[in-house]
C-alpha cells in the first residue's frame, strides 16, 4: 500500500535591518565576538527592549506580498518564550505567540508532480535570534558570542501542504526568492540568514495526519532535500516494520545524510509564553500599511511579474517562473526586452534560462555579476533574429563576449561570423549537394525524411557553417520537390 508524505516548513529569515530587533546594536555579520552586543543584548539588570520599526516594516512588506492587507494583524503582541540556555541572555526569547503580525498568506510554487500549486502560510511572526555557543577552540569550557543575540528574524510557518522533498525545496526556493525580491532578507544561507525547520510525517492516503518529527536548522536546499527524503523513508520503514513514530526534534547530519533524534516529546520545554509586559501591543495603522504597500507595488513580487510575462509576452509558465527566480534576473530580462522588443521574449527566455543560466552556474556567479550585459545579450539576439547569426554561431559569439572580447557586433566582424543569407550563393551550395548525393536524394524522394537532414548538413558543411540553415532547407525542399 502507498504512503503519503506530509511536510510543513518553519523558516527563519533574518531581516536586513541595520540594528537589532530590540536594541540599537549593529547586526553586521562576522565581527569579533561580543563586539556587537550592547547592554540590552547582554541583558544587564534594568535594561528594556524597544521594537525596531524597520523590522516591523519588513514584516509588513512580507505580509502584503503573501496575502495583502487582509493577512496583516492590525494589533499583534510580543510574547516571552522562557527557557534557560547560555546563549539566551535574558532567559527568554521575545517572539510573537498568540497574535502574530502576519496571520495568513500563500506562496505559489511549481510542483514536479502536481504542477502549479499554492502553499498556505499559517503565520509569520517577528522575533529575536539567540547568540551562539562556541565549542571549538576552547578547552574545557564553552564560549558565548552574543553578537547575533537580538538579531531580527521573521519566522514564516507554512501549513503542511507539501507532499515531497521536491515540493518542500520548491517552496523554500520560492520563499527565498520572495524575501530577497522584497528586500527584507539577504538570503545568505551560509551565514544563516535563511534557514528551515521541516516537520515531516507520513500516513496512508485518507488517514489522519501521522505523528511528526521536526528536523531542525537546515541551511541549504540540498540538505533540506536530503533530510526530508531520509526522514520520510525512515518513518515509512519504521511503520512498515511494525514500529511507532514518537514525536521528536531531530538533527540532520550532512556527513552521513541521516537524521537522528535530539530530544523527545517528554523532555520538550514548557516555554511558559506570556505577553511581554515591557512592550506594548504592536499596532499598525492603515496609513502605515498603505505607505508600505506603495513600495511593495513598485518592486512587485515574483508572482505578479511572472503573470505579466505569461500575459503580455506569451511565455510559458515554466519559462516565466525561471525568469522571476530573483528580482535581478527579472530586471535583466526586462532590460533585454526593452532593447530588443517584446516579440523576441521567447528567444530571450531560451537564452537566459539556457546558455546564460548555465555559465552563471558554472562560474558560481549571480546575474548581477554576469559578464554578458543585458545590452550585449540584446544585441546578440538581434543578430540571431535578423538572420546574421545561426544559433550555433551565436553561442560562439556569446562565449567570446563572456570572455571579454568585446561587443557582439565587433566580434562578428572580427571573426567573420556573418551567416550567408545571399540566396544566389546558397542555391549554388544546394545544387552541388544534390548533384553529389544522388542516393540521398532518391531516399528522400522515396519518403525517407532522415535523408533530408543529411543533405542540409552537407550544404552547411560546404558553407563552413555560415549558411542560414533555415534558408538552406527551404531551398533544398523547393529544388527536390521539382
Amino acid at each position, binding site marked *: 500500500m502507498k504512503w503519503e508524505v506530509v511536510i510543513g516548513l518553519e523558516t527563519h529569515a533574518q531581516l536586513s535591518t541595520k540594528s537589532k530587533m530590540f536594541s540599537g546594536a549593529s547586526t553586521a555579520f562576522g565581527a569579533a565576538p561580543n563586539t556587537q552586543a550592547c*547592554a540590552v543584548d*547582554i*541583558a*544587564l*539588570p*534594568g*535594561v*528594556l*527592549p*524597544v*521594537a525596531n520599526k524597520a523590522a516591523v516594516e519588513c514584516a509588513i512588506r512580507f505580509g502584503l506580498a503573501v496575502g495583502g492587507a487582509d493577512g496583516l494583524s492590525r494589533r499583534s503582541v510580543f510574547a*516571552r518564550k*522562557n527557557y*534557560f540556555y*547560555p546563549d539566551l*541572555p*535574558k*532567559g*527568554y526569547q521575545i517572539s510573537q505567540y498568540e497574535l502574530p503580525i502576519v496571520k495568513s498568506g500563500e506562496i505559489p510554487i511549481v510542483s514536479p508532480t502536481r504542477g502549479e500549486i499554492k502553499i498556505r502560510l499559517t503565520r509569520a511572526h517577528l522575533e529575536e535570534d539567540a547568540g551562539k555557543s562556541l565549542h571549538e577552540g576552547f578547552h574545557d569550557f564553552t564560549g*558565548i558570542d552574543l553578537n547575533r543575540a537580538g538579531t531580527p528574524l521573521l519566522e514564516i510557518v507554512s501549513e503542511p501542504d507539501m507532499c515531497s522533498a521536491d515540493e518542500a525545496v520548491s517552496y523554500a526556493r520560492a520563499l527565498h526568492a520572495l524575501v530577497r525580491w522584497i528586500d527584507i532578507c539577504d538570503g545568505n544561507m551560509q551565514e544563516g540568514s535563511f534557514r528551515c525547520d521541516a516537520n515531516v510525517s507520513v500516513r496512508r492516503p485518507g488517514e489522519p495526519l501521522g505523528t511528526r518529527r521536526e528536523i531542525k536548522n537546515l541551511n541549504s536546499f540540498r540538505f533540506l532535500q536530503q533530510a526530508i527524503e531520509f526522514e520520510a523513508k525512515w518513518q515509512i520503514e519504521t511503520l512498515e516494520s511494525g514500529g511507532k513514530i514518537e514525536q521528536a526534534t531531530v538533527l540532520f547530519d550532512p556527513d552521513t545524510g541521516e537524521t537522528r533524534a535530539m530530544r523527545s516529546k517528554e523532555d520538550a520545554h*514548557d516555554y*511558559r*509564553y*506570556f505577553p511581554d*509586559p*515591557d*512592550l*506594548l501591543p504592536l499596532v499598525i495603522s492603515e496609513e502605515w500599511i498603505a505607505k508600505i504597500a506603495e513600495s511593495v507595488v513598485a518592486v512587485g513580487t515574483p508572482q505578479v511579474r511572472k503573470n505579466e510575462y505569461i500575459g503580455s509576452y506569451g511565455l510559458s509558465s515554466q519559462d516565466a517562473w525561471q525568469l522571476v527566480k530573483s528580482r535581478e534576473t527579472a530586471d535583466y530580462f526586462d532590460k533585454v526586452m526593452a532593447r530588443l522588443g517584446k516579440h523576441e521574449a521567447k528567444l530571450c527566455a531560451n537564452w537566459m534560462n539556457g546558455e546564460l543560466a548555465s555559465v552563471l552556474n558554472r562560474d558560481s556567479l549571480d546575474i548581477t555579476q554576469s559578464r554578458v550585459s543585458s545590452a550585449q545579450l540584446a544585441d546578440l539576439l538581434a543578430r540571431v533574429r535578423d538572420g546574421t547569426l545561426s544559433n550555433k554561431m551565436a553561442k560562439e559569439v556569446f562565449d567570446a563576449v563572456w570572455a571579454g572580447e568585446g561587443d557582439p557586433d565587433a566580434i562578428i566582424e572580427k571573426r567573420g561570423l556573418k551567416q550567408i543569407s545571399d540566396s544566389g550563393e546558397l542555391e549554388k551550395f544546394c545544387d552541388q549537394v544534390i548533384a553529389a548525393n544522388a542516393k540521398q536524394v532518391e531516399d528522400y524522394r522515396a519518403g525517407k525524411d532522415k535523408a533530408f537532414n543529411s543533405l542540409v548538413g552537407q550544404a552547411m558543411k560546404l558553407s563552413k557553417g555560415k549558411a542560414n540553415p533555415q534558408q538552406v532547407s527551404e531551398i533544398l525542399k523547393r529544388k527536390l520537390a521539382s
Partner: protein
Amino acid sequence: MHNATIKSLAADLAARKFSSVELTRHLLSRIRALNPKYNCFITVDDAASLKQAQAADDLRAAGRAGPLTGIPIAQKDIFCAKGWLTTCGSKMLSSFISPYDAHVVEQLNGAGAVNIGKTNMDEFAMGSSSETSFYGPVRNPWNADNVPGGSSGGSAAAVVARLAPGAIGTDTGGSIRQPAALSGICGLKPTYGVVSRYGMIAFASSLDQGGPMARTAEDLAIMMNVMAGFDARDSTSLERAREDYTGEIGKAVKGLKIGLPKEFFAEGAEAGVTGAVAAAISAYRKLGCETVEVSLPSMKLAVPVYYVLAPAEASSNLARYDGVRYGHRAQDYADLTDMYKLTRAQGFGQEVKRRILIGTYVLSHGYYDAYYIQAQKVRRLVARDFAEAFRRCDVIMGPTSPTTAFRLGEKVDDPVKMYLNDIYTIPANLAGLPGMSVPCGFDGSGLPVGLQIVGNYFAEAKMLGIAHQYQQATDWHLRVPPGCEG
C-alpha cells in the same frame, strides 16, 4: 541642616549659606554614625558623593544651578548607577558594578543632585518589611525593633532619620507608600509610565514604577520635576508635555470631593491606624472638603491577583540571573544544569525563590488560563472600579497600610500575613493609578501612620497640592525619631 527640606536646602545653597560639599559631608558623617544602627544603606561612597557635590558647587558658581543642584538624594539600590555597586539587595548581584545609569539617575545627575548612597531594600523589591535583603534587615528609626516597611525601607528610614532630605524608591505593590507610612514620611508612586523604568531593575514590569520619597509633598513635587519625563528606551514610558508638579502647591482644597472607599474602612486595619486616618479626613473637612462614600468591589481580589501577576512577571524577569554573564556564579558544579541550579539556589533568598516558583507555576502549561488570564481579567475590573469611583470624587483617601510598623521577624515566616500588609496599596498598582502616602499621626506606641491618597491618571500635581495643604495644617512630618535629632 539635616532637618531641612529640599526646598529650604535649595534656598540656603542658593544663598551660599553653605556649599553642597559641606552639606554632603555633614550627611555622610551622620550616615557613618547612624547607619550601623538602622542599616539604611548598602553602599556609601564618600569620595564619589563628594565629587558630585563639588561638581554641583561648580555648576552653581557658573550660574547654572537648578532646584536639585547640590541636594543629596539617596538611591534605592534597585537603580543602576554607573560605577556604583548595584545589588538590588541580593547576593546574586553582590558584585555587580553597573556600567550604566538608569534614566532616573541620569535625570538626577543632570540636575546636579548628589547620590548620597545606595539604600537597602527587600531582595529584588520582594517584601513589605525590608527584611529579605542579603545585607540584613533595615530597622525603623522610630523603634529599632520594628521594620521600616518595604521594599524601599532603606530609603524611607534614611529620610526619616535625617540622613538624606529625599530618596528615590520603586513601588510595585506599595513599596514606596507602605514604607513611607511605616516610617513617617511622604512617598509618591506616579501614574504607570510617568517615570522611566530604564535602568530600574525589574521585579514586575507591568506594575513597577519609580517615585520620590521625602518629608514633604512639596519636596516630592520638586523631585518629580526632575524624575518624570518621556524616555524612548522604555516602551511603556508615556510621551506627554513636561509638567510642573509644583503647580498646585499652595492651591486651596475647598470644595474638593474626597472619596472614601468603604472597603478601605471595613475591617482589618488597626485601631491606631483608623483613628489617625479618620482624624486626617476630619482635618480635610475642616479645610472645606466634602467626603463621599465610594466602593471598590473588586478590591478583595486585588491581593490574590497581584500574587499571580507579579510573580509571573518576576519569574521571567529574574531568569537572566543565571551565572553566565555577570553576578554570582556557584563555585563547583558538574554541568550546565547543575551550574544554573546551584547559582540560583545560592544567589537568591527564600522570598525571591518562593515568588519565582509561584510565577513559574501560574505560567505553566495547563495553569496559565486559570491563573494568569483570569488575573488579567480581574485586573481590568479593579481599574474599572476606580474609574467608576472617580466619577463621584476627585481623589480617594484611606489608610496606606492596615498596620503600623510591625516587629522584625513578626511576619517574615508567614507570607500571607506579610502580603496582606499591602492590601490598600496594591489596587493602585493594578490600575496604574498614582498613589501617595502622607504622615497623619502616630498610634499608641508612637509609631507613625500614613494617609493614602489615590488620584486619577496624571493627577500627581493635584494630589501633591492636596497633601501640601494638609501638611501646612499639621506637623506630623516635622517630628523627629528619638536619637535622630543630631
